């Protein structure tokens, strides 16, 4: 216990009482603040512990966080912290190149983040835009796009205005990559409207809108061309396979005809031989 305390003192200086977690993610983790702070500290600060100490810290947090599950099961922030912790675990195993453990924890991380996002649709307290920005890397495409869009809806988490407009572009890009072109076009319209509403229609950000729009058109055209090519290919394949079937059909008939001729000929020979006898 004393060593664990020492680990904590090393890892988590006392000034962090002002909540590292809140500072980093713009939301509070009521009910498990200390643990959330330690998870956040491991995730975002330079960790100066040796491997053994890191192992102890992470194991301690695994047990503590699991202990909160019953009381926090509907809390999106709790599941966000669980995801963050799983990512920390993956990072730890990466140091010793334990690929299976890394993959296992990354999978768990994605699952926890998905739970957090699901709960966030209804339950309080809501996740911050920063939380969504933290969650999006490495998620499956659809979930990633959802994270981007939700971050956008919550005003983005960047240090300047450019970030917000790039977030718009990211959202449009993610939608068009998934071939959700109608939604992508609506996202383009939304970006255009927001630029206009904020009096930025003549600003440098207009170039981002144009690029985003061009990408949607390009992806859509490429997809349509690909579909057309694939339809033609399918048609050719069908045509070829139809020809082969027809060929086989006639071949069978011809073979049967030949067989019949042979049978009749043999019968004829047989009858002729019998009459000669």
């Amino acid at each position, binding site marked *: 216990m004393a060593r664990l305390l020492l680990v904590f003192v090393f890892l988590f200086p006392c*000034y*962090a009482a*002002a*909540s*590292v977690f*809140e*500072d*980093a993610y*713009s*939301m509070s983790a009521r009910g498990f603040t200390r643990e959330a702070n330690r998870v956040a500290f491991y995730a*975002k*600060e*330079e*960790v100066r512990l040796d491997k053994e100490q890191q192992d102890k810290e992470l194991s301690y947090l695994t047990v503590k966080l699991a202990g909160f599950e019953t009381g926090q099961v509907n809390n999106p922030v709790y599941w966000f912290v669980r995801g963050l912790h799983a*990512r920390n675990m*993956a*990072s730890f195993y*990466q*140091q010793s190149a334990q690929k299976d453990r*890394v993959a296992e924890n*990354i999978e768990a*991380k994605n699952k926890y983040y998905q739970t957090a996002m699901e709960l966030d649709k209804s339950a309080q307290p*809501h996740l*911050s*835009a*920063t939380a969504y*920005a*933290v969650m*999006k*890397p*490495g998620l499956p495409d659809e979930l*990633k796009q959802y994270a*981007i869009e939700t971050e956008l809806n*919550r*005003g*983005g*988490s*960047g*240090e*300047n*205005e*450019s*970030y*917000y407009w*790039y*977030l718009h*572009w*990211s959202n*449009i*890009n*993610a939608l068009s990559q998934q071939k959700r072109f109608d939604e992508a076009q609506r996202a383009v319209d939304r970006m255009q409207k927001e630029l206009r509403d904020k009096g930025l229609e003549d600003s*440098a950000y207009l*170039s981002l809108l144009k*690029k*985003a729009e061009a990408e949607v058109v390009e992806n859509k055209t490429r997809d349509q061309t690909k579909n057309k090519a694939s339809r033609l290919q399918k048609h050719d394949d069908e045509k070829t396979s139809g020809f082969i079937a027809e060929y086989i059909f006639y071949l069978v008939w011809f073979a049967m005809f030949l067989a019949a001729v042979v049978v009749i000929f043999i019968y004829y020979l047989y009858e002729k031989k019998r009459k000669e006898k």
Partner: protein
Amino acid sequence: MSSRYNNQWIILWNEVLRRFSNTEFIDKACIVWLYNAMLLMCVMFSAPVYAKQPLTILSSDNAESRANNSFIFIPENKKILQGIKRDAGKKYLKPQVPFVVDLPVSVKDTALVQWHIITSKLDYGEINVLSDFHMEKVKSDGEVIWSSEILRNDTADRTRLVFKPQPLAHYPGIYKRGRGTDGKRRNKGGGTVAIDFRKFNPRISYYIEAVVTDLEKQALIQYTGKIAMDNKDMIRQEYINHYNINRYGRGENGNIPVPKRDEITKTPSVNIHLLGNSLSESSYGLMIDDGVASIAGLVVDLYEQTKNKYKKSKKKFFDLNKRELKIPDTKLWLSGGWRNPERNEWFSNALNGIHQRGGAIDLVANVPHSDKRSAIIYWFLWNALENQNYIKAFWQLEAHGRAMTTKEYTEDIEPVNGIPDAFDKADHIHINIKYD
């Protein structure tokens, strides 16, 4: 004008009522005064008002500020360093100089003088009148007006108004990022009450008026003047407001010195290969350039030259798994350079962030952030910076306001794509000059 004269009427009637209620007997002085008052009323009804004439104003001990009738508030008993650039000599700001406003002409003994100081409610901060006469404060629609009594020749120095502004408090008195999770102002965050982060601090100003009533000529002469912060002093005031301010959460208090006026200059144009914003994030049209312009130019040239070198020599850029990466053919985007403190407080937790010193820029890959192309551009630029030795600067990748940790430069787990995670997660690269 009418509101000011209405106000004068009110003061006049207040004075009549006060004298009658406080005096048991109507003495000679009172009769003289009543006579004057009635005369004044007649003048106000019928007398011509001469065209406005300028007052003589001394607003600051700084010659340039004084020339513009500009000023800064300097809180009392607070030592604030001045001189923001690396090689600037640092000195403490001198105490606040009182504003001295003089009538440009001498007035006759029979003339009456009344002073008014008007400021907008938005800029409202108390004032401390140092003249011998008292000034009464009245709040009206959108304005706060301090008015003196009607001063006769028995008031010493009635032709000179001396007052000190009281600093407009930075609200709340703690540094807390203003922009909340929904993009709206956080509770008790984001600086001065009247701040508009897109623009700047309020332009605090005092409109001063002296009305001289010449009873002999039966004429009113109006003298006016305006003391208003100019853009440079507005910027300096932002730094003063944030000096030694407490940081919400962990971290140091505010310690960025206040720029001298000559350290604030016009915003220079950027390198032609650089897209996006200007080197100043503010709307002042001014900035502090402690090396950002030069750094921006050097970095962008390095990026473009390295890209061209790869293209011409058919040199290849590989990922961690030795697979070739295609370098996107796009320019860099400047998302931020010098940031005024109020804007910094809106966007950032970094109370003493170097952007406010004019020593840092943020560059963005001009592709969607979550796209692999973005990671490739940051990694490519990073390698170019690491493999040169003439740009004397410090650089780091950042995402949503935080720097990447060392481990994220080696890990490839989120996502597994052959590029270290730091580059996948980054939303900009921050580059700053080195400070001791």
